[in-house]
């Protein structure tokens, strides 16, 4: 691909999704667009890109954007965040006794994050004292949402981050793949959501997991998404970002000792005591 084509692709992806492709990572273009090009009947990723430029076919554009923004993930990635959810956030919300507990896994990629949350909810159900929990999951990519919804994972995927006992408890072997139990599958509601869109129709949330997504956005898009998420949080809600991500600049309050966890109201640890 010529440098000017790469630049055009970068602008296209950034304009549609907010994701900035690191110029040093242009080697990703071929590995990510190659399979899509073949599926769509083009000989190479360059041919695919030329077709996109000529036809401006919206479906092809989105398929390319999705391919360029897909991310690897694992079950219980950054275990401390899930420990916080299980040990602190969830019991506090369960004790609140007003309305359902609403949780959103934004940018859920192939579903490991919402299913990790679902496993915790299933394991802690006795302590929830009948509180209603609504678990939503979304991604920019249709392909990701579809794969996540299927709950089907390779042997490699189920060995990243998932303790073996959780595998036995929550998955069934299906040929050489592993499928999440129907109980957990039914706990998650899936949607395709572009975080750059107006998020207000989604309603309010007590917990939003949005990790390693906005970090790759351009600064204005990142801030817009975080401000919108802040607006969606309930007064005792919190936003869980990646370990190295911050949300101080939009007026959310970091939780002490828990990198990446931000609260709508400061000092929830004190309030929970």
């Amino acid at each position, binding site marked *: 691909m010529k440098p000017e084509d790469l630049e055009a692709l970068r602008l296209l992806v950034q304009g549609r999704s907010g994701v900035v492709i690191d110029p040093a990572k242009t080697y990703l273009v071929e590995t990510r667009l190659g399979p899509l090009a073949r599926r769509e009947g083009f000989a190479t990723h360059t041919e695919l890109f030329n077709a996109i430029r000529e036809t401006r076919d919206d479906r092809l554009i989105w398929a390319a954007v999705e391919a360029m923004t897909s991310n690897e993930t694992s079950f219980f990635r950054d*275990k401390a965040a899930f420990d916080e959810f299980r040990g602190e956030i969830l019991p506090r919300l369960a004790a609140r006794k007003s309305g359902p507990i609403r949780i959103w896994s934004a940018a859920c990629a192939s579903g490991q994050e919402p299913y990790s949350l679902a496993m915790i909810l299933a394991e802690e159900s006795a302590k929830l004292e009948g509180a209603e929990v609504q678990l939503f999951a979304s991604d920019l990519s249709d392909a990701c949402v579809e794969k996540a919804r299927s709950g089907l994972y390779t042997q490699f995927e189920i060995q*990243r981050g998932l303790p073996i006992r959780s595998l*036995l408890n929550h998955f069934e072997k299906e040929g050489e793949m592993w499928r999440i139990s129907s109980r957990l599958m039914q706990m998650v509601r899936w949607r395709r959501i572009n975080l750059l869109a107006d998020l207000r129709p989604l309603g309010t949330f007590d917990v939003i997991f949005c990790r390693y997504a906005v970090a790759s956005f351009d600064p204005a898009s990142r801030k817009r998404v975080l401000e919108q998420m802040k607006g969606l949080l309930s007064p005792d809600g919190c936003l869980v970002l990646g370990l190295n991500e911050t949300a101080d600049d939009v007026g959310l309050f970091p939780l002490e000792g828990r990198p990446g966890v931000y609260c709508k109201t400061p000092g929830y640890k004190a309030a929970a005591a």
Partner: protein
Amino acid sequence: MKTCLVVDDSRVIRKVARRIIEDLGFEIAEAADGMEAMAWCRTAMPEAILLDWNMPVMDGLEFLRQLRAEPDGKTPVVIICTVENDPARIAEALDAGANEYIMKPFDGDIIISKFAQSGLVPEMAA
């Protein structure tokens, strides 16, 4: 330095595992079957054992059951590493005293992830 005993009848697998686990800061000892592994453990009990299942002389599960009956035999973290991937077989290994379980083929990420879950390395390394 902590020691990890790598037990596998394949020299290639031992070599691959050694390279990955050395990077996690372990000293590596190797054994080609359960009998050799038991001799190692009776000399110096390791902190961790990566254990193949199907091996000549003494297989992994027989070794594991004997190990857990030894004095200090409950201290090592044992991670089974095998081609066996049937849920009933996995449950059998856990019942025999395995802490974690890796299905072959594995890669570095999987070993690091399982070592972290077992508390052998800090979670941040995973």
